[in-house]
């Protein structure tokens, strides 16, 4: 990790801690824009900071720690895709995206969309804060078309996904004969851009999960240190200690894997290796997050079952997250696919 990544992380932690878990989406978004996080990865030529995915993921980790209610992952994915594109209005678009005035939503789950005859049909799942976006970045299930679609385009309907996790505010987009605002890429170019987008989405989701897992484990350990039972703090009971130690080793492993994978994306120009590292990071991070929250709920006892306590916010986020990206069971199987037949 370069020094600047560390600085970025420390600053972000301070910001997220100050905001707290309940911070309002609008306020948080304004702060994210103000801090320049939206231009983090934009090239310096485009007035960006020119930092890389590892830096972005350092922020995702911190936002994940605080369950920040802000569509930062989707925003960065859209910005990167526009940066990679050759849109005529690229410069203007980047300026408004970077300032936070404009937000383009991106589905965090896989889409079931077809592009036929210049029109999009189907459903796109899991677009965060779509009601705040002017356009949404969508692609065809066949991966041969990426388009921007206006949120008020005829034939497009927004439906709140109403997930148990209320911190992401996801939407389903139902499309019927929707004409895109513009096409960003077709054919092989679209394929390549989508590989990049999915790889980055995997890393971003992994980073948020690592942050969330770290945070809920810290909170659980702190709770056990305070809560007295049988005349002692719960933290003194060896059975609980050992469970926390196992969780800690898993969180550290997921963190190390994420960081090692990000290092690979920076140094190597091997797209397949970066993709594979993203798959592994996402898989382990989500496995870890769900396992940690499951244990955290048990270790908190009754208090964790009340909505006044924060435990459930992490639980619901973790339950949702494992189904985002390429889907719950795709990761292990894609990873295995490189080594096993018939996959």
């Amino acid at each position: 990790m370069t020094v600047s990544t560390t600085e970025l992380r420390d600053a972000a932690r301070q910001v997220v801690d100050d905001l707290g878990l309940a911070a309002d989406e609008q306020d948080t978004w304004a702060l994210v824009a103000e801090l320049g996080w939206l231009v983090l990865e934009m090239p310096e030529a485009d007035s960006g900071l020119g930092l890389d995915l590892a830096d972005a993921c350092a922020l995702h980790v911190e936002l994940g720690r605080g369950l920040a209610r802000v569509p930062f992952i989707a925003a960065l994915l859209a910005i990167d895709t526009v940066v990679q594109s050759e849109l005529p209005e690229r410069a203007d678009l980047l300026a408004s995206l970077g300032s936070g005035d404009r937000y383009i939503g991106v589905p965090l789950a896989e889409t079931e969309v077809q592009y036929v005859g210049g029109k999009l049909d189907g459903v796109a799942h899991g677009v965060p804060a779509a009601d705040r976006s002017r356009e949404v970045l969508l692609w065809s299930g066949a991966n041969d078309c990426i388009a921007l679609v206006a949120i008020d385009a005829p034939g497009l309907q927004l439906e709140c996904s109403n997930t148990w996790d209320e911190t992401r505010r996801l939407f389903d987009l139902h499309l019927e004969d929707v004409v895109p605002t513009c096409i960003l890429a077709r054919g092989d170019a679209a394929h390549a851009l989508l590989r990049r987008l999915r790889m980055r989405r995997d890393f971003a989701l992994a980073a948020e999960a690592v942050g969330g897992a770290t945070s809920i484990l810290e909170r659980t350990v702190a709770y056990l240190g305070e809560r007295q039972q049988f005349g002692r703090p719960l933290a003194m009971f060896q059975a609980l200690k050992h469970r926390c130690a196992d969780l800690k080793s898993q969180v550290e492993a997921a963190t190390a894997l994420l960081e090692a994978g990000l290092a690979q994306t920076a140094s190597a120009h091997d797209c397949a290796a970066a993709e594979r590292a993203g798959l592994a990071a996402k898989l382990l991070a989500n496995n870890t997050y769900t396992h940690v929250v499951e244990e955290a709920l048990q270790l908190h006892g009754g208090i964790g079952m009340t909505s006044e306590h924060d435990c459930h916010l992490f639980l619901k986020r973790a339950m949702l997250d494992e189904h985002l990206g390429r889907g719950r069971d795709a990761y292990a199987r894609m990873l295995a696919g490189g080594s096993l037949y018939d996959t």
Partner: protein
Amino acid sequence: MEQSDDATGALRREVSAWLRDNVPGAWRESMTGTAQESFVELQRGWFQKLSAAGYATPHWPEGWLGGGRSLAQQKLIFEEVARADAPRLILYFVALYHAACTLLECGSAEQQARYLPAIQDGQIWCQGFSEPNAGSDLAALRTRAERRGDVYIVNGQKTWSTMAQYADRCLLLARNDRSGPPQAGLTYLLLDMHAPGVTVRPISQITGDDEFAEIFFDDVEVPVTERVGEEGAGWAVAQATLASERGLTLVELSQRMRSALPRLADAINAAGRGDDSALQDDFGNLLARVDATCALADRYLHKRITGEEGPGDASIVKLFYSRTLREFTLLGRRVGGFTAQCERGFMRGATQETGNWPLDFMNSYNWSIAGGSDEVQRNIIAERMLGMQREPKDWHTVERI
């Protein structure tokens, strides 16, 4: 078993025929996403029917409507109710089991005459044992009951009391004496929930439900005649309360879990993943564990019938049930995918197998935390059943709350 197969068969046919005619129809649909009040209405209506038929009180002694049934017959009725997928009588469980059995075992004749008919008529009770700082540790109870002439003055707070907001009476365990060993200073009272100074605040649960409540006591007067057992003997009376359902709940819960397996299979098939060997492995292993849970619960009840129950037997069943239920709901979460995460409506009166997997998963913690957490059960199994040495002096554990 004490009965011939014929007599058992006849009872089973009788009960199942009655259930066929009387179980509220389509309650899973009508109770999904509904308000607490309409749920209470369903419970009242269903209780009146079941009670009038005598099937709500098979565990009461002979002489009471429906009473005098053997434990085997009680089990049979529980099984049939579970199989018929009737709503659980959550609102009346404390009255029918905890209150009634405590009164029958430790109450005065006058107390029995006052409350038992009222319970059969639908009086609602709640339990006042748990406190915010005494989850699994009854010795830490702090709610006070100070004797002043003919009354006790009660001050303090109870929590995790099921449906206390609808209760008429409360089974209260309070501390009358702080001088002796912790278990010695407890007194058992029957408290009127409508008395001045009682405040109930429903607990907002992470599922959106509020079936539990906190109860606050502010100088609440309880007549001495409402004391069960002697002053300071509350611990022993509480044991009678806790033992009251004698394993029947776990029989019912495990049967309900088995009945819910097809719901999981349907979800797998509906996802087009019946041929996914990873899901086959998980589902097959779950089948075996669910069957084992039923077998454990049956065996435990049999031990109670024959008087062979040993220390830790109940903990084994509860622990295995809670772990199996967790795996059940985890598999559901896996199969349900993104779509299942978007279904928020919860179903009242069901157990942990509604088919709304994230909800079921969260509710599964009711069984691994409440009624003696998994951790407390493990302590009991290790120390009382396996005979592993206890930790030194003040590292004590308490049966369960």
